[in-house]
């Protein structure tokens, strides 16, 4: 396809701005500039597309653009910081859906010719469709619309058979000259189903990795459809995201010590599988005791988790931290790589509350310090501080690196109830002698502690 310069040049500029923007986003100082540049690139690329010669349906195009943009813009502005992970999931799913739909149009028109082109169109369609329904499931799970992990009997067999079936149908689409609409429809229906079936049994604890994986998938799908449409800008943006997303997924999976294949094929289900019975009992304490313990401590390490996020407690927690610091207590925050629902999720929430970066530490940086801490305050975190992961080989979370909160002199756990974490595994930490439970929502609890601290 020979496009005029006034289309090619802006597209090139768009691709360049995407790469420069993404590069900018990889450092805190230039991150905002990065997204701004990428945004300019997007506007330029979209505007230039209207100038492509011989395009029909321009009115429809403008209408669809307006609908999608305004809808997503408003919903993204409104959503709370805590709910960002699922928003990323849903927008990612939409991108995947768009890539699949592009393939559907191209295949239906029968204009895609050549083995390579049709193959890439079909692969892109498959990946995009899986990413679409998979991301929708991820959204529903994080949004709390889907509470349980649904597992079919012989889930892995079903997954593999369905995947083989879809790939087989895809191969037929590639080899058959101008496949009929029935075949195309069946292919897309099964690809969409595959995304659902693969994602439904995966527990919430693994969602960050899954979202990241689907993000990489959508990137690849976009890159492949870019080839089909003859648009290098799409290829570059899509493949860059595909590669970056794959690496990011690996980093996350490594942090959880769960190979990606493990997450997809043997998900930790709702019920605890195996795991030794734990001796001892959970011991409660009141907010006033917690306040006193921390007020007269030398060093407190706070471990925030998803419970802090859902309770929107980050502002109260920071207020509490400031009071403790005024009293001369050294306070640090310890962030597990997969705390919350996405890596870095806790960092974002704490930054929102105004906690300076220099008080926030990674697992590797802080793990040695728990031994010197008087109090480890765990706010709505569970699996990431479960010492079972170090010791019990039969536990589903065995081998996951954890924060060594159990090594602190005292451990206080703010927790809504006696339930288990997302993995469904009992937490041995809660039963140890130096651990006390503070039952309640993180926000009111932090509020109570603040009241007591002020009166001390």
């Amino acid at each position: 396809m020979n496009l005029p310069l006034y289309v090619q040049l802006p597209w090139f500029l768009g691709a360049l701005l995407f790469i420069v923007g993404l590069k900018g986003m990889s450092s805190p100082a230039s991150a905002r500039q990065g997204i701004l540049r990428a945004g300019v690139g997007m506007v330029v690329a979209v505007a230039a597309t209207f100038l492509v010669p011989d395009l029909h349906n321009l009115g429809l195009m403008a209408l669809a653009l307006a609908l999608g943009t305004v809808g997503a813009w408003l919903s993204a502005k409104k959503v709370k910081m805590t709910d960002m992970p699922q928003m990323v999931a849903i927008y990612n799913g939409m991108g995947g859906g768009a890539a699949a739909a592009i393939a559907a149009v191209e295949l239906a028109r029968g204009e895609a010719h050549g083995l390579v082109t049709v193959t890439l169109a079909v692969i892109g369609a498959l990946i995009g469709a899986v990413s679409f329904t998979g991301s929708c499931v991820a959204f529903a799970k994080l949004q709390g619309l889907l509470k349980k992990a649904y597992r079919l009997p012989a889930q892995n067999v079903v997954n593999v058979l369905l995947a083989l079936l879809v790939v087989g149908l895809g191969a037929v689409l590639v080899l058959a000259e101008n496949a009929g609409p029935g075949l195309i429809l069946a292919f897309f229906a099964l690809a969409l189903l595959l995304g659902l079936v693969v994602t439904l049994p995966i527990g919430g604890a693994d969602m960050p990795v899954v979202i990241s994986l689907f993000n990489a998938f959508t990137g690849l799908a976009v890159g492949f459809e870019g080839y089909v449409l003859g648009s290098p800008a799409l290829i570059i943006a899509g493949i860059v995201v595909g590669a970056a997303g794959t690496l990011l997924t690996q980093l996350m999976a490594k942090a959880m010590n769960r190979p990606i294949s493990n997450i997809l094929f043997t998900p930790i289900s709702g019920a605890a599988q195996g795991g030794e019975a734990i001796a001892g009992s959970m011991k409660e304490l009141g907010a006033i005791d917690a306040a006193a313990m921390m007020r007269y401590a030398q060093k407190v390490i706070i471990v925030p988790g998803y419970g802090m996020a859902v309770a929107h407690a980050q502002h109260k927690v920071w207020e509490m931290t400031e009071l403790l610091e005024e009293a001369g207590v050294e306070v640090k925050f310890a962030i597990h790589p997969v705390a919350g629902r996405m890596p870095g999720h806790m960092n974002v929430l704490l930054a929102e509350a105004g906690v300076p970066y220099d008080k926030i530490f990674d697992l590797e940086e802080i793990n040695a310090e728990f031994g010197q801490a008087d109090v480890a305050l765990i706010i709505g975190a569970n699996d990431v501080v479960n010492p079972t992961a170090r010791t019990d080989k039969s536990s589903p979370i065995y081998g996951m690196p954890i924060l060594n909160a159990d090594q602190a002199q005292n451990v206080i756990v703010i927790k809504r109830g006696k339930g288990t974490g997302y993995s469904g595994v009992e937490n041995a930490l809660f039963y140890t002698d130096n651990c006390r439970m503070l039952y309640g929502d993180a926000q009111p609890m932090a509020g109570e502690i603040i009241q007591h601290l002020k009166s001390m």
Partner: protein
Amino acid sequence: MDGFIAIYIFMLAAFTGYEIIARVPVILHTPLMSGSNFIHGVVVVGAMLALGRAETPLEQAIGFFAVALGAANAAGGYVVTERMLAMFQPGKRAGGKEGA
């Protein structure tokens, strides 16, 4: 496009993506995932091309759907990323109150 040129583009783009992410602090993982999510929103350009060449009503409907989804991916991805990164603004709060 010449098939082989495209393969070179695929390769170079893959390395670029890999290199960009290789040295990223953990605190930026979520914004970066969100940012890359925005960037693949460029699929909207592809969707516009597909809709622009659609002829039958069915093709038009699917194309319309694709453009709307792609636009939502781009717009939503941008706003979410921008909101996350707004909190990393240097000097806004960083180093605010140090311990007494």
